[in-house]
């Protein structure tokens, strides 16, 4: 199991470690919004993306586990004539494959995917995606402009990368970014005009995850519901039996069992709170045939915690889960979500949790 958790929040980055008990062992960037954090298992580097209120998006790297940080150059958009083309947020950071030392991917607002091959020192916009005509159909979901929040690098082939875009659907490259295909067949957006309901390039996958040991299996928590793919994301089928709601942001998949996935349901659309103000986790262990509602250890009255896209993580064993909310609450489960222990109820609003 992973005994370290990185918690990126509205007011800093907090490292939790399991000693005699779970405790905060390090704080960094205190009072600054940390929008994303990446522990790179290949060389144990840490990356933290900040969005300073006045001074913009910053990127930092640590080579000693988070004791010291070095500011590195964040991605930059090429010169443009419009008002929208400028880096607003680093929404996702992922490491490339084991055969790609130094490779990082960054998903950003307003919709650019950036690649680095030198541990984040320099970044290059993936024009092969940015210049696709379908991108003009993308629109904001969660923010005013579109953004890439999920990046899945296929463990079998590092040149296969699948993205989740809000709102721009699911995109896949099979040639390391030389070309991209919008691969959302089967997804639908019931809230859109009928003519656009099935358009793959306007779908709103809130979060996309891939099973490590069986990468053909991908799960999506979509604005419209839960979708699963068994063919590397080429086609998707909807799962409508998630209780208490098919709406939510986060999804986690078991690294060794593609049939087991977790979701954090909420009331749909304008009323984004837990159903009946009871925080629960929905789990399937049979590929979505059925879902269990897990609530042991979670607040069951007047709970208004919302778990965002990156607020749920599963460790490498698949037994331990961590979940952080917009209300600054943090929970851990040691038994696949059967029961949860509260680590804190007074952290800043949590953007991202990641095992390291």
């Amino acid at each position, binding site marked *: 199991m992973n005994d370290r958790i990185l918690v990126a929040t509205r007011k800093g980055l907090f490292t939790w470690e399991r000693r005699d008990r779970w405790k905060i062992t390090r704080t960094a960037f205190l009072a600054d919004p940390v929008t994303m954090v990446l522990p790179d298992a290949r060389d144990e580097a840490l990356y933290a993306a900040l969005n*300073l*209120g*006045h*001074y913009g998006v910053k990127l930092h790297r640590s080579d000693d586990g988070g004791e010291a940080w070095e500011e590195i150059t964040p*991605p*930059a958009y090429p*010169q443009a004539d419009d008002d929208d083309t*400028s*880096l607003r947020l680093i929404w996702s950071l992922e490491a490339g494959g084991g055969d790609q030392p130094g490779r990082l991917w960054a998903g950003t607002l307003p919709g650019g995917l950036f690649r680095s091959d030198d541990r984040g020192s320099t970044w290059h916009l993936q024009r092969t995606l940015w210049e696709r005509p379908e991108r003009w159909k993308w629109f904001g979901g969660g923010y005013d402009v579109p953004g890439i929040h999920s990046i899945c690098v296929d463990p079998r082939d590092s040149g296969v990368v699948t993205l989740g875009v809000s709102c721009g659907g699911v995109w896949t490259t099979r040639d390391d970014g030389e070309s991209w295909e919008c691969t959302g067949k089967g997804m639908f957006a019931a809230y859109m005009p009928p003519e656009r309901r099935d358009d793959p390039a306007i779908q709103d996958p809130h979060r996309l995850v891939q099973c490590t040991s069986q990468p053909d299996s991908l799960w999506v928590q979509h604005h419209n519901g839960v979708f699963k793919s068994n063919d590397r994301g080429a086609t998707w089928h909807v799962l409508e039996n998630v209780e208490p709601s098919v709406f939510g942001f986060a999804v986690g998949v078991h690294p060794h069992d593609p049939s087991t996935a977790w979701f954090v349901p909420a009331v749909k659309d304008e009323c984004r709170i837990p159903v009946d103000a009871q925080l629960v986790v929905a789990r399937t262990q049979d590929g979505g045939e059925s879902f269990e509602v897990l609530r042991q250890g979670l607040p069951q009255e007047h709970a208004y915690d919302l778990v965002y896209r990156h607020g749920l993580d599963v460790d490498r064993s698949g037994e331990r889960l961590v979940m952080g909310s917009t209300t600054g609450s943090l929970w851990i489960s040691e038994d696949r979500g059967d029961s949860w222990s509260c680590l804190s109820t007074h952290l800043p609003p949590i953007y991202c949790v990641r095992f390291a």
Partner: protein
Amino acid sequence: MPRVVFTPNLERHVAAPSVDVPGRTVREVLEAVFASNTRLRGYVLDDQGFLRQHVVVFLNGEIVEDRRHLSDAVGESDELFVMQALSGG
């Protein structure tokens, strides 16, 4: 030479001492500062080279008009003051 003063608020993130540098426009003056303090550039300007949305520059106490191209004229004895706009707070 024009003088450039930065809000002490910036020091939390990056060194931003007051400096006297040559230049005939706000752009020229600021670029002269950034030439020897490259990290500071990204805190004041965005990736398009425009003044960040929540940063403001005063020229002798008046807000500069051209936030994109920073073309406002600067005199030899003028003072620029760079600070965080309260809109971003």
